């Protein structure tokens, strides 16, 4: 099996005492600790302001799985941001430099992860670790 680890460290001085949260997980298939996620898709796009697109499509093979999604807004202008949605439901805004890491069970085949760019052309890096996805038929 493939072993993929995702670690996060959150640090801040906004409290009266320093805050530090660190954790790591090994990305496993749904409901097991013996078989790691063994497939991935990765990409980088530039998305013009006002454009809303599916970034990652939910497909039949991905429904109900322990998929993990990483998205980073690699823009550098602090006013640039992308709105993240799942099946049209607004999740949040990723501003320039922000990233997110989310479990995504692709609840149904409509549960695509969508992005809408604001302010300018945003640069978006992304990766999806999964158990499989249904490929498009040949045209």
């Amino acid at each position, binding site marked *: 099996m493939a072993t*993929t680890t995702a670690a996060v460290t959150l640090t801040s*001085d*906004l409290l009266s005492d320093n805050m530090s949260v660190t954790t790591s997980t090994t990305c496993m298939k749904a409901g097991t*600790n013996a078989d790691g996620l063994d497939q991935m898709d990765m990409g980088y796009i530039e998305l013009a302001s006002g454009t809303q697109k599916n970034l990652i499509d939910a497909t039949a093979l991905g429904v109900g799985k*322990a998929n993990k999604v990483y998205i980073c807004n690699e823009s550098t202008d*602090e006013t640039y941001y992308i709105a993240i949605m799942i099946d049209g439901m607004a*999740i949040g805004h990723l501003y320039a430099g922000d990233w997110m890491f989310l*479990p995504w069970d692709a609840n149904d085949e409509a549960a695509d992860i969508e992005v809408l760019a604001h302010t300018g052309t945003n640069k978006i890096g992304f990766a999806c670790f999964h158990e499989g996805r249904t490929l498009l038929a040949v045209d």
Partner: protein
Amino acid sequence: MATTTATITINSTDLLTDELSLSSIATLTTAGTSTGVTQASGLARKTTSAASAAAIQANVLYRAGDYTANGANKVYVKNTSTTAAEFYTVTIDQEELGRLYAGDWMFMPWNATSGTKQVFTVTFASTWAAGETWTFDGITMTCPSATLALIAAEVHTLNYPNWTTTYGGSGAAVVFTARYASDATEIVYATGDATIVSANPGTAAISAAAVGSASESDITIRPSVHTAMTYETLLINE
């Protein structure tokens, strides 16, 4: 200015033929600026359990109405379980995001788009006497005197479990606003929903009542089993 950073590293030596190493550091700022975020809730830890599988309930993690809408808020959640099959289902409004299996964590931006809150106005009139009462939401106001403005001011000083109040500083009217957004299935409040004890009698008419609309982005998590599971969470917000 506070500096809050979030660092992620994703590594794998055997997923691809070449080693995968991905790393990103974000300095968390308020929306559209280079100013650091200034507020945080947590770190919190909670154990969920229920009497049986049929009694499992979703837990509201964060209510959108409590935070800045469309801010650069960030939410961290971890499932501390060590039993592989145990997971929390994370939902925003009615949209299921995903399942946090044992040991999994997530870090995501959050819009905190709230709905609108129910409101009404209560206006004190006619003849009240000191010591008479008006009761609403389980809270009883005892008139400090017969002066209507003082009665309204007294209503405003009390703490209601489900409502906040606004008083203009003069006059006999107090505006009640629900603490949380709710949908239009709620009743429209009327004068009879409060209890008046007044001999003369004084009146306290409720008017301008309007229902709200449901919040669109409360975050809820639902455990997969009724036995004890524990999650940790942190909100960094504007």
